[in-house]
């Protein structure tokens, strides 16, 4: 009969405890993101295009805030949440435009250095039933986390986060 050595048992216990702690710590780290730094591309009422801001998800609304301005989007009105991928120049904005005129094609060379981005598209209806679409860009890997939070809060999604992991991003299923 196989006899368990108490030392082996203890070390196995210690190892499993360490692994469990590590796993829960990683999960906690993932869940720590409650405010997302985003760029509002288009779609929110009273917010200008390409505005930088922060998004938070509460029990019944998604709130975009930039300075003192806030825009709320009711979770119950969300029809679909979709993620996608994009990229932009490392040096973008006005400075990026200026670098296009740099001599000896160096501006073009700089265009090769790119930053990957996630896009999050939210399809929602206003209280009158009117269709809207809000598009945000986020740092790579954060769109899925934000989508998870929205779905957990009750937002509808045609492609659920688990399915999305196995699909190419940004492609909507044909209805």
């Amino acid at each position, binding site marked *: 009969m196989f006899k368990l050595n108490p030392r082996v048992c203890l070390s196995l216990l210690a190892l499993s405890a360490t692994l469990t702690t590590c796993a829960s710590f990683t999960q906690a780290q993932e869940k720590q993101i409650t405010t997302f730094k985003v760029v509002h*591309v*288009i*779609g929110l009422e009273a917010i200008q295009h390409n505005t930088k801001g922060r998004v938070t998800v509460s029990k019944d609304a998604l709130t975009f805030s930039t300075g003192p301005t806030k825009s709320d989007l009711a979770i119950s009105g969300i029809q*679909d949440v*979709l993620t*996608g991928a*994009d*990229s*932009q*120049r490392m040096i973008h904005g006005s400075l990026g435009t200026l670098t*296009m005129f740099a001599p000896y094609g160096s501006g*073009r*060379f700089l*265009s*090769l250095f*790119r930053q990957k981005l996630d*896009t999050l*598209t939210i*399809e929602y*209806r*206003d209280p*009158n*039933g*009117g*269709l*809207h*679409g*809000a*598009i945000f860009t986020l740092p790579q890997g954060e769109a899925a986390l934000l989508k998870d939070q929205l779905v957990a809060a009750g937002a509808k999604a045609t492609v659920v986060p688990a399915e999305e992991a196995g699909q190419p991003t*940004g*492609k*909507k299923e*044909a*209805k």
Partner: protein
Amino acid sequence: MKLANGRGRIVGSIAAVALGFGFAAVLAARADAPPTPVHASAIQIEQIQSEDVKLPAEFQMSMYEHVVEEIGKTKRFAHVYRDGDRDAASAPDLVTLHCTVTGFKQGSAMERQVTTVAGATSITVHLEFTDKNGQKLFQNDVKGNVRFFGENLRATYNFSKQVAGVVRQDFAAVTPAKK
């Protein structure tokens, strides 16, 4: 001298053929346009359909938002209603715009920025305007491109500008109510 005359003739005939093609293209594009501008006080813009063409969600929604915005700027309608808006039912002379994506090519912003000539993004959409009874008023095909500068989503803005151009051309300006 003879050679110069021959070359002149060739250039002349090429120019004439090009002009002919140009006129034909313009006539074809305007073939289905209404003879006189249509009067309507309200328009409802239906959700953009892309059943046959795989269009990323961000393009679809960006196109929709830009079209709503740009049609609002044309000042041709007192009310611009979104898809599903319940208030649209009460508008007496409502026109509905149906957009169907017939072609989409997602280019690359990096290719454009590096090469200038490659990596264009283009979207082709079939527009159909119908009256409140569902009768077709006219239709048109519109294209949105990004060829040189700008991110891919800019094609959706360029497309909406084209749609606004069609609306400006084919709809009469809304007359302000008398006081």
